[in-house]
């Protein structure tokens, strides 16, 4: 250790530079630089050019692509669809995951097997999920329409993924089915972390199940739900695979979320510069949302500490 001051009464020992921690994170940083930073910077660079087909050359056009995107009706239409998609997924996944977690936290018979089977939808690859549900919802051969007509809930088969009114909610339902187990597992872990004594004490005070849920379970889960809220929103917003596999953004653009719009702009309409601009604008939206979310959460956190003190 180096000695900085030679004053007999006060010696400052500065530790030598610790290179070891940096060496530990270096491979990961290189990986992130290669797989995130480089493509990101390339996309930003492309957004200022009029590059058409990916791989061809384009010229610098300044902010022209941004102007096109911000004035584009289809871009805002897709943004609106993305918002609906995120809200639908948020409500469905949170509700289903919470209900599953609460149910599984009770020690009913077979709850361990149920916990194992719960994750089954999550482990199925997305492409398989799309094919399975596509067939199940088929108007001519699908089991869903068969059952619904058999019990006379509908008179004739419905084209769930082929009608503008039902395509987005149906795709959101399928995406929820696929992903809610992950959220359920996280919430279950959160519930299991709540001390049992709090429930016992509340039962002694006469609280019923609903009151315990509202006044103990939900507040205790708030940090977990809050974190999942941000992560889940960003993940949902960026979902491309299940939407494209199920509907390719159809029918007639009804499920053309922003990721689908950007993909089609870049690889179907051969306007990669414009697609890059759209993706930068979208990233800025999401960044703004994330910052606002974190800020409002951190503002609420001190008042929560006062409440629980």
């Amino acid at each position, binding site marked *: 250790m180096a000695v900085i001051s030679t004053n007999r009464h006060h010696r400052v020992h500065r530790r030598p530079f610790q290179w070891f921690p940096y*060496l*530990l994170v270096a*491979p*990961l940083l*290189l*990986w992130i630089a290669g797989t995130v930073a480089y493509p990101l910077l390339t996309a930003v660079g492309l957004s200022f050019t009029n590059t*058409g*087909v*990916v*791989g*061809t050359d384009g010229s610098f056009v300044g902010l022209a692509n941004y102007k096109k995107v911000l004035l584009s009706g289809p871009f805002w239409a897709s943004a609106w669809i993305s918002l609906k998609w995120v809200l639908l997924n948020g409500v469905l996944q949170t509700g289903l995951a919470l209900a599953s977690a609460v149910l599984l936290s009770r020690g009913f018979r077979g709850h361990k097997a149920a916990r194992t089977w719960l994750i089954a939808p999550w482990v199925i690859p997305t492409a398989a999920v799309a094919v399975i549900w*596509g067939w199940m919802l*088929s*108007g*001519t*051969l699908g089991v869903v329409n068969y059952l619904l007509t058999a019990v006379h809930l509908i008179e*004739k*088969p*419905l*084209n769930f*993924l*082929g*009608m*503008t009114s039902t395509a987005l909610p149906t795709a959101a339902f399928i995406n929820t089915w696929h992903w809610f187990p992950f959220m359920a597992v996280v919430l279950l872990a959160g519930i299991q972390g709540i001390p049992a004594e709090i429930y016992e004490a509340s039962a002694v005070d006469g609280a019923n199940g609903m009151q315990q849920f509202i006044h103990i379970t939900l507040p205790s889960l708030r940090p977990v739900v809050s974190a999942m809220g941000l992560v889940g929103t960003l993940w949902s917003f960026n979902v491309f695979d299940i939407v494209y596999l199920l*509907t*390719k*953004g*159809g*029918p*007639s653009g*009804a499920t053309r979320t922003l990721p689908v719009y950007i993909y*089609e702009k870049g*690889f*179907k*309409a*051969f306007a990669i510069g414009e697609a890059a601009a759209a993706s930068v604008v979208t990233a800025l939206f999401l960044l703004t949302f994330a910052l606002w979310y974190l800020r409002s959460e951190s503002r609420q956190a001190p008042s929560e500490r006062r409440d629980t003190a």
Partner: protein
Amino acid sequence: MMRIMFRRGIVWFLMALVSMSMLAACGSAEKSQPKQAAGEGSTSGEKVIELRIWHMEEPPEWAARFQEVFDAYSKANPNVKVKVEIQNWGTAWEKTLAAVQAKNQPDLLFTIPDFTTTVKSTGIVQPVDDLVSELNQKHKFLPSATGPYYYEGHHWAVPLYGMLQVLWYRKDFFAEAGIVAPPKTWEELVSTAKALTKNGRYGIAVPASKTMATDQTIYTFMATSGAEDLFDASGNVRFDNPGTVKAFELYNELVKYSPPDVTSWGWGEPRDAFYNGSVAMAVEKGWYLGDWEKTSGKKPAEIGVAPVPVPAGGKNGSIYIPNGAMLLSQDPQKQAAAKDLIRFILEPDNYGRFVNASPALFLPLTEDGFQSKTWLADPIIKTYGEQMKVLVEQSKNGQLYGFSNGKVFPAIGKISAQNIMAQAVQKMVVEKSSPAEAVKWGQKAMQEAIK
């Protein structure tokens, strides 16, 4: 102290493992890049040339039959190894363009004319004038085969096999309904579809999804109503014309007698519905013959095929798609090997086997191909002789969007990549726009696409 050292040792080990994994990944990525020069490896000491081929014929049995021909070539030419990577038409455009950008494109890429116009824009497609000229002299290509690939003074692909659409119908359902002959006019088509829609069965299946299947089917009807030219002589879009509107009006009627989920259907679903008896008619290509007996349980004579019905004052026609192969490699040895492979494929005996990868779907494009013993000897071709006559006859009347009447408009690639015709159909079928409004929308979308 020992514990700290042990922990540090573990950390160093893990770091080394991660670093080595990253280096290995980079190394294997380099190895997977196609070598521009021929590689090493033949036991005889001769350099082995690896030819990478991409094609979009996904069904395993089709790919297997292509592979037989490629293997026969490799056996006859041990210094050339043919490596096939199967893609699909849904992602062919973007995957190919990404591969070209990554300098990882295949050496030979199977294609259709509008796809060629897009890939050519990257500058990677090699002209094949000498080869087409040589093969034309030897085997005599159909004019409709080479035309769509010839523009800017060069041939950009070698034609390999053709496809066209016809009207398929279930003779058993027709007999049940007392219908003695297939419809010849649009009016008869609609009334027949209506008469056959009952008891849970639908009269016809016309796709209305945002896919190439819909593009091709709507265009099939446009080709009979005088709307086959999507561009005028100056290259301006002329999608919005009376012939197109009539075709859309017909399509709107036919969708009423189609299953409700046709808005999600591509190629496979109408065929499955035809086989399982859910629908009585379909407008599609020759592959309906291949699995008819096995899947439907019906006899060969019970599947009917007829020319696509025409409107009053219309003309016999259909969509005709000459599939080809583009040469993308810039390496002279690989170019020579690829050309040699194509020569091998087009020799009548090999060609018959190649084209029968999907008998009746893939049709020969050369005069001697139609006479090929191996083509004619295929069990499907032999069994369905009457149906094949209709297919061969109709292939003389085919057109293709962007390449109709002997003219070539390379801008079509930007239109077909976005399935704009299919989107216009969806505007009509899903959003309930009128046919005229849907066509107007299509016109505007196409003009925007080619700007």
